[in-house]
């Protein structure tokens, strides 16, 4: 399985992290739940649900941390019977980002945490500065939109 990324610079760090940590699922996203890179999810819509929930956890934990006047939330780990869920927040040239990792019994939270630190460093090194983007869609996108919505609400 290959990692899927929004921008090419994310690919090498994600693949290295997955290889080294033994993670089953990995996702990098913005705090608002937009997915920048993912490994292991099969359907795009599933990855969006996981991202929404991960961002929700990070947001609510961040708020509790803020109420306690503590420094920013960094890491959360949940250990289930067969899976662990790791959520880490880090700063990058692209602003704050979140990493969501699901791992199994073939690795450990210690390894995930360890390689996550390297992952954050790799991402920071690889991230290019953001450049302004031109128009994305053609001006006459309405016809496509109408057709898409018509098939959506048949």
């Amino acid at each position: 399985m290959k990692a899927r990324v929004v921008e090419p610079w994310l690919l090498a760090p994600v693949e290295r992290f997955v290889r080294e940590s033994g993670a089953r699922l990995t996702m990098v996203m913005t705090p608002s739940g937009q997915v920048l890179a993912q490994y292991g999810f099969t359907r795009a819509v599933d990855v969006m649900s996981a991202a929404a929930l991960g961002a929700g956890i990070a947001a609510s934990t961040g708020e509790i941390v803020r109420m306690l006047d503590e420094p920013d939330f960094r890491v959360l780990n949940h250990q289930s019977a067969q899976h662990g869920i790791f959520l880490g927040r880090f700063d990058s040239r692209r602003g704050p980002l979140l990493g969501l990792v699901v791992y199994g019994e073939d690795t450990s939270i210690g390894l995930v945490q360890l390689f996550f630190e390297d992952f954050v460093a790799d991402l920071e090194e690889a991230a290019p500065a953001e450049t302004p983007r031109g128009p994305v869609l053609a001006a006459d996108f309405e016809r496509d939109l109408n057709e898409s919505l018509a098939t959506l609400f048949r």
Partner: protein
Amino acid sequence: MSLVNFTSREITCKIVYYGPGRSGKTTNLQYIYGRVPEDRRGRMVSLATQTDRTLFFDFLPLELGSISGFTTRFQLYTVPGQVYYNATRKLVLQGADGVVFVADSQIRQLDENIESLQNLQANLLEQGIDVRTIPLVLQYNKQDLPSDLILQVADLEEQLNFRMVPAFGASAVVGKGLFETLRAISERVLRKLSEAQPA
């Protein structure tokens, strides 16, 4: 801000359904979920209380299809309407590309609608977003209720739609007006992507 993957030509946009408690935000998403073919939607996630009131958010990912050669996906979120959940509303509103304000057409709910609309404006402002620039659509829900209980669309327009944004009378339980609302917000959000974007 909407996410654009130029390599795989994909666009992901976040749309938030906002409005006072029990105005029908969750029902909007539930109806859409029920109507859309399975291969075009993900699982609907609801973080709700035991009495089915939205506690954090509802979430529905949709595959819109191909727009100008880009596979386009929408993430539909609702916020909890009750006044005391403002911290949660702010969190869900982060990074929204467009907002659907679902108003409750009942006469006795008018103040709640106004308060919620002001709250939306304040929360957007806190994130540095001007309510005049973010794509916004109004939906006057519950128009199916007896006419002596509700305000007509023209009255609601006068009371709530100061910015003259697209607005639709609706009945979420039977799906009336929901498609039009979604179409209007989609068009407005995508319109922004056909213009030059700041970094």
